[in-house]
């Protein structure tokens, strides 16, 4: 096995996870459950293809993809923050809605029920010059930047305060509502970038193309114990397992289904606390009355 090709393939697989997991970390640290990452990614992927297809420029595609994720994030934020709807239910609804809306628009704009036509991208043939894709670079630095934001900036301090002790934060003048809105908006845009990367990398949108990647990102957030860098490490680990599976495909060493299970099994183990318990932010998912 060629280590360089292994590494490039692993990074390419990890990028959507890295974006989405960073988004998941910021929302969950602010106390909002991020079961919606899958839906944000999917809407971002579709909006990116739509934008690219109509403008011809992948840069416009990136912008419109981020905007697509933002719209779904705002629906999520209004439902959970303004209306205090149950965050798990809204998460399920947002994911179903994203599948439905992208399917409907796929039909409306591209007259297809399976995939869009081919659109432009950033180049980025992984074997030759995989790293000429700006989103790839962005994906690599997003986790360290998120770590800096969360641990070293006033906004990050507020996010952590709001996620751990919203009452205390409120009492010193932090607007819990505003911080949460911003955190969810950021999570929507970041997760959407993961979807944008995916769609532009494949030069098209296909129905349900995110295929559970948002849930792998949530796994990474939990397995990384809600820390940006650890979550990023988990993303790389999961991506490495997937790469291994792809590169071993001919060998039939381990059935691919068992490799697929790794992220999910590790998450359950982490939650059960076999090797050090994963403890979520204290106010995660709670609705104050």
């Amino acid at each position, binding site marked *: 096995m060629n280590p360089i090709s292994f590494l490039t393939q692993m990074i390419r697989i990890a990028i959507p996870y890295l974006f989405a997991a960073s988004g998941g970390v910021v929302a969950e640290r602010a106390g909002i459950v991020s079961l919606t990452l899958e839906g944000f990614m999917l809407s971002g992927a579709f909006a990116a293809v739509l934008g690219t297809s109509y403008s011809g420029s992948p840069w416009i595609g990136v912008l419109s993809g981020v905007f697509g994720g933002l719209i779904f994030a705002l629906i999520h934020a209004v439902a959970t923050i303004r209306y205090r709807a149950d965050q798990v*239910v809204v998460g399920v609804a*947002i994911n179903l809605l994203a599948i*439905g809306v992208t*399917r409907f628009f796929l039909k409306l704009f591209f007259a297809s029920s399976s995939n869009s036509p081919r659109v432009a991208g950033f180049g980025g043939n992984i074997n030759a010059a995989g790293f000429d894709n700006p989103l790839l670079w962005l994906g690599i630095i997003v986790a360290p930047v998120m770590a800096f934001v969360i641990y070293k900036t006033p906004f990050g301090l507020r996010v952590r305060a709001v996620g751990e002790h919203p009452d205390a934060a409120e009492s010193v003048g932090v607007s819990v509502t505003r911080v949460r809105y911003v955190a969810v908006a950021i999570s929507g845009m970041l997760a959407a970038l993961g979807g944008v990367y995916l769609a532009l990398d494949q030069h098209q949108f296909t129905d349900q193309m995110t295929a559970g990647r948002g849930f792998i990102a949530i796994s990474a957030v939990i397995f990384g114990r809600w820390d940006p860098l650890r979550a990023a490490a988990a993303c790389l680990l999961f991506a490495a397992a997937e790469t291994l599976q792809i590169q071993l495909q001919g060998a039939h060493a381990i059935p691919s289904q068992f490799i697929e299970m790794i992220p999910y099994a590790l998450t359950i183990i982490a939650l059960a606390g076999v090797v050090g318990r994963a403890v*979520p932010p*204290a106010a995660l998912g709670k609705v104050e009355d």
Partner: protein
Amino acid sequence: MECELSAPPLAKPAPSPARAPWREAAEEALIPPLVALLVALICGDLLILSYGQSPAAVYRMLLEGTWGNAYGFGQVLYKATTLAFTGLAVSFGLRAGLFNIGAESQLAAGGFAAALAGLVLPVGTPLIFALFVCMIAAGLAGGLVGSVPAYLKTRFGAHEVIVTIMLNFIVLALLNWFIAGHLHVPETLHTPEIHAGVLPRLADIDPRFHGSAANLALIVAVLVAFAVWFYLFRARGGYDLRAVGLQPQAAEYGGINVGRVWMRALTFSGVIAGIGGINYVLGYKHYYEDGFASGAGFLGIAVALVGRNHPLGVLLAAFFFATLSQGGLAIHAFVPKQMMDVLQGVVILAVAMAVPEVRRVLRGARGWKDA
């Protein structure tokens, strides 16, 4: 806490924990779904208009294609059957304050086990006996999947939402491995046809239903709904379960073993979803096919929510969502059926936002760090 003797006021099940006058209770239960329906109709109008069609004409077509003829109605009943099972499963967990997002894989595991049982039984096994064996197999498989989050929650406090989501992927991958690697008919992703346990279809009883997949699993679903109602509202165990769902700490002080109730609630939630597998396997295709659940488990969450976690409401909500799904096919020539996928999401979102009461029911499920 283990001592059941110290539970003085719980002996007689109360009819309703809210004790609201029936009218108030009815309003609280009915208004959110009606609001959601209205929102869905408006969204539906917009989607239909975006396609340049007339909403009135499309809705008429939808009704004609679903309730207006026996075939369409039979298809609605068939789809409603699976949704009734998953909806009952989710609502059973929610009554205990627990969120079972694993109905999808429990349904698949149940269908798989039912098919295995139907394959193992010899040809010519009496239907009643075969049905019984297949249902037990399906229920056991679903219950086995459901017992994992139940155990992890009770023993380690692992949150059932995440565990059931993760377990969906694991169980579906495992089933895929079984089917793709070991049990499939060549060139397909399904098992051979079962030897015993094939359920009669409605078309066998009334030929007008010819061609539709509706079958006697429908009766089983109604019976399960009745059993759930009886357990929740007429049995001691159900009273404990609802008490835990409303206020786990208070229930604990009242002498209820909360952990045991959680175990029971999630495991039986899995059992109910698992039995749902018979609708497809025994009633429709007569084999297990990879991916047959195709979202019915997740839609069960919507069904439970819109049905207000009451068995009768769940049956009605299952019928409603089945109508949406079948209605999509009926209008597909004019507006893409994908419109219904949008409306499903809209309905869930609208109900979730419209129901303060849902929050109360879910009180236990909300905290991520409970016990």
